C-alpha cells in the first residue's frame, strides 16, 4: 500500500478569498502522490476546482455533493 | 469644587473641539479630495457658487490658522497645568469679586475678559501668570 499522505482541507463556511486558496495553501506543502480531500460549502467551488485541475494538471479523483457540503478528492501528480 | 469640575469639563470640550478643527484642517489639506470634489462640483450651473469658493475657503482657513490653533492649545495646557489648589484659589478669588453672574460656570472667554480688569489682577499670582502666558 502507498504511504502517500491524505490530508483534509476544511474550507466550509468560507467564501472569500475562497476554498481554492485553502487548497493552494495545502498544495504548497504537498508532494506528488499525496491525496487532498477538500470540503466546501461555497457553491462556486465545483466549477473553480475543475478550473484548478485543468490549469495545474493534477488529478481529480472524485467530486461529489453530500448533504451538507461539497467534497473534492485530488491526487497530486503535477508538482515540479 | 464645582469650579474645578467645570474647568475639567471645559478643558475636555475645548480639547475635543481642537481635535475636530485638526480633522477639518486635514480634510482641507487633502489635494486628492479637493480635486475629486471640484470635478463633481464644477459645472455651468454651479459655476456661480464655485466663484464664491475662495472666500468660503479663506474663512475656514482663518479659523484653522496655526496661530489660532496655537492660542487654543496654550489655553488648554494652562488649564491642565493648574493644580487643584490653584483652581480653588481661583474659585475663591472669583467669589471675592463682584460679578453679576454667580454660581454659573463661566465661559472661557468670559473668564479671560474678567481677568483683564485691573482690580481683579491685583494680588492674584495665578491670574498674572495666566495673562503672561496668553501674551498679547
Amino acid at each position, binding site marked *: 500500500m502507498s504511504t502517500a499522505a491524505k490530508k483534509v482541507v476544511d474550507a466550509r463556511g468560507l467564501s472569500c478569498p475562497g476554498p481554492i486558496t485553502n487548497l493552494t495553501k495545502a498544495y504548497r506543502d504537498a508532494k506528488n502522490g499525496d491525496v487532498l480531500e477538500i470540503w466546501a460549502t461555497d457553491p462556486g467551488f465545483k466549477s473553480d476546482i475543475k478550473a484548478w485541475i485543468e490549469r495545474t494538471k493534477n488529478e481529480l479523483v472524485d467530486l461529489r455533493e453530500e448533504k451538507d457540503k461539497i467534497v473534492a478528492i485530488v491526487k497530486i501528480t503535477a508538482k515540479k | 469644587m464645582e469650579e474645578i469640575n467645570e474647568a475639567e469639563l471645559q478643558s475636555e470640550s475645548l480639547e475635543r473641539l481642537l481635535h475636530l478643527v485638526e480633522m477639518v484642517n486635514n480634510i482641507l489639506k487633502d489635494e*486628492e479630495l479637493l480635486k475629486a470634489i471640484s470635478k463633481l462640483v464644477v459645472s455651468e450651473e454651479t459655476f456661480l457658487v464655485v466663484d464664491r469658493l475662495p472666500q468660503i475657503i479663506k474663512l475656514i482657513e482663518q479659523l484653522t490658522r496655526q496661530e489660532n490653533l496655537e492660542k487654543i492649545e496654550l489655553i488648554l495646557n494652562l488649564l491642565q497645568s493648574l493644580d487643584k489648589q490653584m483652581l480653588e484659589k481661583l474659585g475663591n478669588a472669583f467669589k471675592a469679586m463682584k460679578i453679576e453672574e454667580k454660581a454659573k460656570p463661566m465661559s472661557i472667554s468670559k473668564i479671560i475678559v474678567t481677568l483683564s480688569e485691573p482690580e481683579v489682577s491685583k494680588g492674584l499670582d495665578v491670574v498674572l501668570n495666566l495673562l503672561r502666558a496668553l501674551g498679547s
Partner: protein
Amino acid sequence: MAEKKKFLIVGGGAGGAILANSLIKDFNVTIVNDTPNHYYWPQLLQIAFRNDYSNLYRPLSSLLAKGVNLIVDKVKKVDLQERTVTLSNNKLMNYDYIAIAPGVTIEHKGIEGNDKLVEQYGDFHSTPQNASKVFNVVTNMKKGTFLIAVGDPYHRCPPSPYEGILLADEVFRLRGVRNDINMVLAVPYPRAYPAETFNEVLEPILKERGINVMTFFTADKIDIENKKITSLEGEELSYDAAIVIPVHKGPKIEIKPEDAINQDGFINADKFTNQILKYDDAFAIGDASTSANAKTGVTAHLQAKVVSKRVLGFDARNTGRTNCPTELGFEEGTFVISDYNHPAVKVPANAINFIMKRLFADAYWDIIRHPEFWDPIFDVYFENTQPEVLWKLFR
C-alpha cells in the same frame, strides 16, 4: 466602589487603540505597543503611487484617551493559563482581561528571492521605505513588463493588489509612457477578484485599462538574475519590474498554550466573539487573529467594538462585515461590502466612493481618538449599508 478590573491590550493599532478608548470608563486599561507610534497602514499605497506621506503616523500617546496607561515595549510571551504577559526585559504583568491585537509579521523570506526583489523594486505591504521604492519605479520606468503578483492570498487589505496595478496604470498614463508598458496582475484565484460577485465590477475595469490578468498564479520562486517568477501551479512569468505581495505570518509572540496559535502563528479566536479557545477573559482581534475574515482596519475596529460590549455583558457578535474602499485611479473608487452571510455587493465605481475613502482617511485619527463620538455615526452608516439592503439596490 469596587476597584476597576485590569484590562491589558497587546498592540496599539486600529483594534487596540479603539478598544482602549472604548473601555476607559469601565476598566483600568493598559496598552503595550512595540513603538511609540501608531501607523495608518493604507498610507503605504499613497506613498507607493503618489509619494504622499501625509497621513502615515502619529504618536500613539496622542491618540489614547486620558487615563489609558501606555507602555512602549515588546511583548515576549502571553500565558493565557497563568494570565500573565512577559515584556522584553522579562518583567511580568498580570491581567483580569486581555486583548491581543499586535497585527501581522511580514516575512519576505517566505518566498524564495522576495528578499532581493523587494530591495530592488519595493512593495506596499511592509514598510514606508519599501513603498517609496515602488514610487521610484513607477516614476522612472519607461518600457517593459510591470508585474504585481500575489504571493500570499491572506494578505492585508483584499483590494490592495488591484488598487496597486490601477494606480500604477494611472501614473504611467499621466507620464505618457503607458503604451510602452505591459501591465500584468498575477493572482492565485480562479478569476481576477476571488469573490465572483465583486469580480463582475472589477474585471471589466481591469480590462478597460489594459491590465493583463494571470489567474491561478501563486508566486513561489523568484529568479532575480533572469527576472522570472515561477508559480506554485507550475507556470512562469517574466518581468522588468515586479512587486510581490509577501507572505504574512502571525505576531512574533510566544503564546501559551500552544494550541492558541495555528501553524502560521495566527491566534485561534472565535469568528463571532473573538474569544481565544476556552478563555473567556482573553480575546484576539484584528490581523493577528483567525477571526478576521479580512485583514483590514475596519475589521479590527468592528471587532474592538464587539469585545468592548461583550466584556460588559452584552451578547455582541461579529457579522463579518467588510467595508474595503477600493481606489481605481482618476478620482474613482468602489467598496467591497460583504458579511458572513452575504457575498460582496456589486458597488459601482464612481467619484463619490473615492471621496468617501479620502474623507475617512482624513478623519482617521479623530475616529481612533473619539469612538464615543463616531460610534453612533458608524452605527447609522453600517445599518443603512448592510449587504442585505445594498443587494436590493445594486443587483
